[in-house]
């Protein structure tokens, strides 16, 4: 298979990558750009571990072809912190023990960021909806809700 040159905006930086056109955004992020923070649990769009933000909206990177993303702003877990300043979600997830094995965490953080960018006062129902596509096998979700609430509170102040 011949590789194609792609230009991708990831975490505020422009990358020119040579990748096979059938490779997914997930594969290109992990294998070509070395951004292994984005995880995969199924590569079928069922688990949500690979969730990244494209122009502010959560997408499953395992079902997205990078060729469709010319000019789009992609944000991965590596781009969540503002330089050395952690995102309120990151500190809240640590304090509330919302990450156990941590494998679904990058995807959940991205879904949660999209939610909090929309509203910093989400209800439990809105939180459950926002992460309904992200399977977590460790926490039972409770600590995740508590962390999102806490991060929302901190983002308001």
């Amino acid at each position, binding site marked *: 298979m011949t590789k194609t040159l792609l230009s991708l905006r990831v975490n505020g930086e422009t990358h020119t990558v040579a990748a096979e056109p059938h490779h997914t955004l997930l594969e290109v992020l992990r294998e070509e750009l070395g951004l292994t*923070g984005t995880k995969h649990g199924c*590569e079928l769009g*069922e688990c949500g571990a690979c969730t990244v933000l494209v122009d502010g909206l959560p997408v499953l990177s395992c079902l997205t072809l990078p060729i469709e993303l010319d000019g789009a702003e992609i944000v991965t877990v590596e781009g969540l912190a503002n330089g050395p300043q952690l995102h309120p979600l990151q500190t809240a997830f640590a304090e509330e023990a919302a*990450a156990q094995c*941590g*494998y679904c965490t990058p995807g959940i953080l991205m879904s949660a960021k999209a939610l909090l960018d929309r509203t910093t006062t989400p209800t439990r129902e809105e939180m459950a909806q926002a992460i309904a596509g992200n399977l977590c096998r460790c926490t039972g979700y409770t600590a995740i809700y508590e962390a999102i609430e806490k991060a929302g509170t901190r983002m308001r102040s």
Partner: protein
Amino acid sequence: MSEFSVVGKRSPKVNVWGHLTGTARYADDIILPRMLYGRLLRSTQAHARITKLDVSRALAHPGVVAVCTGADMPELMGIMPSTQDETALAVDKVRYIGEPVAAIAAVDEDTAYDALSLIDVEYEPLEPILTIEEALTREDVRIHETSGRPANVFKDVHLEFGDVEAGFSEADHIEDAWYFFEGNTHAPIETHSSVASYDGDGKLTLWTSTQVPHYLHRELEKVLGIARARVRVIATPNGGAFGGKSDPFAHEFAACWLSMRTKRPVKFTLDREEVFYAHRGRHPVLMHLKVGARKDGELTAAHFQSYLDGGAYASYGIATTYYTGALMTVTYRLPAYKFDGVRVYTNKPPCGPKRGHGTTQPRYAFECHLDKIARKLDLDPVAYRQRVLQPPNSRTVNGLRITSMGLGQCLDEVQRATRFSERHRQLPRGKGIGVAGSAYISGAGLPIYWNEMPHSGASVKIDRGGGVTVYCGTSEIGQGSDNVLATVTAEQLGVLPEDVHVVSGDTSLAPVDLGSYSSRVTFMAGNAVRQAAGRLRELIVAALAEKWGIPADRVALAYRKAYDLADPSKAVSFAEAAVLAESVHGTLVSVGSYKPPRGIGGDYKGAGVGPTPAYSYQAAVAEVSVDLETGVVTVERITEAHDCGRALNPPSVEGQIEGSAYMGYGEAIAEEQVFRGGLHKKPSLLEYNLPTSLDTPEMRAIIVETVDAEGPFGAKEAGEGPLNPVIPAIANAVYDAIGVRFDETPITAAKVLDALQKNKERVGPDGLGSQKDQKGALRRLSASTAAREKKRTPPVGTR
């Protein structure tokens, strides 16, 4: 004020930052120069002889670098040394659909995948054995020809304690029922992954997502024929495991073999479907339980029979079989107990240990049974359980030593939080509330291979800048074991957990710990670290006491300082104290180890499974609503209290309780690992139906602390026990809601609706066909066999 400076504080886990920033390095995140990518060819047959296996076309494919088959690694292996019946890749015969047959290493994943179709494999199909009944009765079809037991029996065990017959004759009421617990799987979000690198110095390193680096280390030596001294296993952070990564796996051996052959690193990462075949999950178990009780509810005797559908290989099956019987006695007083367990082979992916290992299924049966007895005798289910509790500091009828025992407090807590007794039997039809209790081990009393060595070893080093490093062979699977090591070290030395460097899961750098299974790490590794760090603490304290001219017990270490308790203004930093101690005593490195005490179990064959240095206890209340039109069971809330001895890190303990409650909920309502003609029916996360955030009930976790005398700072396990009471609590709540006993799992909407429409009082098995009506069972068996034969053989003339 707490007597501790670190223990019991709600601080973040020391290793959480990597998870939150994307820098944690899981096995599949490892990319090495010149690395090859591996894929496994898996069997398409449930039971067949391999008549041809030719890899030459695959090997000739551009980009393929090496291929291996079962013939390259024919040595028998398996986690339990006494029952090894597997090979790394199938040899001559396949025993389940999805069994690894050959492995390819290629320059990239696409090439490896494409080349799988170039392996020429032919099978001669054999009749598959798919049910417990078939396995027990079909002498003519043997999954393992050389097993030496009748038909397809893997193991049968029989134990009897006390006078069971007399116990039943003293009973005023005998409750007798059959139960079936459906099999299910772990489904960690991280699929299994391994990277092997055989380097120029003749040493092999395997990074792998495993719970048991030490046991894997032993098996690699056996199968690969390379001295263990030249092999290093590094357990990478596991993206969830739950028991599913505690066997040695085909991809681990294949990665090593192919790396040794090619002298290049080789990576294998399973895809999601493959994880359903790797399995080693919860055994489907058919159970028969007979319990005698007096009018006041006091139990007089119990007879429990379990039939475990083990799948194609042993895995931990011998332990699983014993575990279905062993822990029945540790919760409620039982003067006489008989246990018969049988595990059979079937042509399905091997079952093994899943969270609660072998105790989850019988606990479900027993706690549903107690609910029935309470109802018959008109007793409140909470008060009844409280009345018949096994006392602390006692022995059970099967010889198990009980020390701290907090089931009573757990029941009090859930009662208080839910007002259970006021609401039970009082809610409108369709709404229900149920309760159950349970127990689990804080680590198995014996290792899986017989030896006199410690179960856990640890080492602690302090450098001249006051830097502290703890080394221990535990595997971090998300349960927080690295944080346990850091917490215990920090408490002993008077630093903070975030100051401690943790080196875990590395067989070259860290002393042996047996692994992250049987909920053993907090208790056993915690005690080993406590001893190792305690020895350094003594050296620091002695050096300061001498310098300050005060008795040693006046020297305190806390919050990165050492000070005189009588005169806190006399203080030095921890780093200064470390320099002084090294000047006086020499290099500051210490070791510690832990081995469970003797005499904590019985003295009979089979007594090795069940003993533990301390049992955890838990109670759960489930509140459900059942939609009478659709049969959908909604679990509104689960309230669970758990006796963890002492919570070293309360958020982690609460996380284990909530995660266990979630997982138990999934097993009770939705999850099942089921097959059609040997083919997995639902090998994807979507079809398997993992509960999402929208399904998962509201959960309330309550920590009960009984401060165990032998646990590190009083701690016991938290990772597995809390799953156990959730399933029977839900089943009992469903009964409270609609008056239907669910003596089988999962409690799906289809089953509920069917029961409601047919006015059934009970859904569940009636027995083992061959016992009730042997001829009838065999007739059904031969009819189904004939039907299958007919399906497989096209009618004459159509070929």
